């Protein structure tokens, strides 16, 4: 949970902030500090309370929840909600579907966009700017614009009914191309030209020079895509009809439809969807922060 490791957003600011805030602190505005701490705690409670409540509900028995009286902490913790969910639904299958789909999308995105990003950033050829501009204009288009023909297309290609119906359209995002091009532009062109003069092929330049220098880019792109795909909803909702292909968000909606107002079961399953990504997010926070800061893709 510690965030001091994030280089771009945190380390440098610590010095700067303390530099300019120091005179104010010296002036003895202790009241200001206390007000800020109270404010920070208040904001944190608003953010954390729904998550805390989700945990409480997931670990409370049904009778406990239907009691009707206000209780902010659980009286007795129980795992029966999880048992009910695991017994009634193919949770393991949905979980592995989510892992398989999001990991494949992330790996595919990294591979395809590193290649494309290198071409757009370092290779000179006619048409590259046009390609980049067209890709950019598609960056913000919501899937609802293209969902009808996309569904027909996926069906006609014979992808409907397989993971690929979700994987390929999700991987077709210009975000990775945009991010990769921007990053690879910062690799000095002299380095690449020197290797070319030494007789290295473009492929060799890519594998020996660009790839090793792109490790931060690979991490950012991988985690951002993983997060997005893990949480993706609108397109998988359309593209996955068979129960056994569901990802966790789609399974979550399905399960809620079955359980209705049985919040214990729904929240237990929601935790299974949420916890892995939140843990990953906090552990690799700096990559996610960079990714979000550069793109605004959410």
């Amino acid at each position, binding site marked *: *949970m*510690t965030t001091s490791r994030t280089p*771009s*957003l*945190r380390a440098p*600011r610590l010095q*700067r*902030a303390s530099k300019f*805030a120091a*005179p*104010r*602190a010296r002036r003895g505005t202790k009241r200001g*500090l206390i007000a*800020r*701490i109270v*404010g*920070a705690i208040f*904001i944190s409670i*608003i*953010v954390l309370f*729904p998550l805390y*409540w*989700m945990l409480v509900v997931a670990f409370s028995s049904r009778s406990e929840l239907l009691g009707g009286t*206000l209780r902010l902490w659980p009286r007795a913790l129980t795992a029966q909600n999880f048992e009910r969910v695991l017994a009634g639904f193919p949770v393991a299958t949905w979980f592995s579907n989510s892992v398989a789909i999001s990991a494949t999308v992330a790996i595919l995105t990294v591979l395809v966009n590193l290649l*494309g990003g290198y*071409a*757009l950033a370092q*290779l000179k*050829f*006619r048409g*590259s700017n046009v390609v980049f501009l*067209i*890709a*950019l204009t*598609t960056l*913000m*288009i*919501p899937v*609802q614009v*293209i*969902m*009808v023909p996309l569904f*027909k*297309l996926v069906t006609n290609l014979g992808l409907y009914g397989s993971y690929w119906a979700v994987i*390929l359209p999700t991987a077709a995002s*210009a975000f990775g*191309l945009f991010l990769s091009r921007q990053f690879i532009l910062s690799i000095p062109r002299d380095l690449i030209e020197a290797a070319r003069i030494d007789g290295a092929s*473009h*492929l060799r330049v890519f594998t020996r020079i660009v790839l090793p220098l792109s490790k931060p880019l690979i991490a950012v792109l991988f985690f951002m895509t993983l997060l997005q795909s893990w*949480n993706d909803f*609108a397109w998988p909702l359309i593209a996955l009809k068979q129960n056994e292909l569901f990802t966790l968000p789609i399974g979550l*909606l399905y399960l809620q439809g079955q359980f209705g107002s049985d919040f214990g079961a*729904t*929240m237990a399953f929601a935790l299974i969807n949420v916890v892995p*990504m*939140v843990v*990953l*997010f906090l552990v690799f926070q700096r990559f*996610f922060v960079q990714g*979000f800061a550069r793109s605004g893709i959410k």
Partner: protein
Amino acid sequence: MTTLATDHEHVPDIAAVRAQNFPPTPRRGLEAVREALAGWLFLTPNLLLLGLFVLVPLLWTVVISFQKTNGFGVGEFIGLANYQRLMSDPLFWRSAVNTLLFTIIVTPLSMGLGLGAAVLFNSILPARGLFRSILIVPMAISGVATALIGVLVFDENNGILDNLIRFVGLPSVNWQSGGLAAFASVILVTLWWRVGFNMLIYLAGLQGIGPELYEAAELDGAGAVARFRHVTVPLLGPSSFFLLILNVIYSFQVFDIVFVMTGGGPQNATSVLVTYAYDTGFVTRDQGYAAAIGVVLLLVTFVFTALRWRTSHGRDLVE
């Protein structure tokens, strides 16, 4: 290089060295062809994916929007009839107005709250990093789970919020059956989900403001409020513009939260353009009409995307 470096008369000129080793004309022509070939080859996987799964469906959407369709079968061209129908469709206008309202309310609120949080968490504060981490946790949570947490909190019979409200002695709110309250609940959940992102961008923007500006302002006698107004706010201009555009685009495309929390109800009080397009295309299966709604969404998206790229700031704002 070494031989050139020993000679004081010669500045080591890379181009000259290169020209010496590689006679320019024939070799450079071949090199250019190779480079172009490599460029297109490296781009091929991307072009295939984007072309097949984005550009083809995009053009196809425009075509279908001029058609009358029957389920997923082949349609017949009916000119602008779908668009004429849009003009006189009360549900379309209701969804458009809801989308606009949602955008107008969510955009300034998430920016304002994000700025407040950024300033707070950029000041001297114990456990600052921890507070920042807490605020961005919702960004890792799926829209479906966020919406279901919203249902849990705002449920009319059993929701924790109504329980709290009654506990304080206030009358409970009809979060689900009342149109206005349902709309408000969707906005509140969206803010919970999104303020962290706004804070992140503003934090990065605050980093770029040199401390000497604050010191100078302070020497000139500017108080905390004046410093915020005349130093912080103007210098965060690029961040604000970037966020304005992104918030507008994302508000326009709000789907997960609305679809799961309210399904557009009660009585279409929370129906927005993307949920209406989805319902038309995949529930009532009126594909041509759904495509026409899609084209409207596309045009709106294009306008704001163009605005974003017209300013060089947005792109390189955060390094």
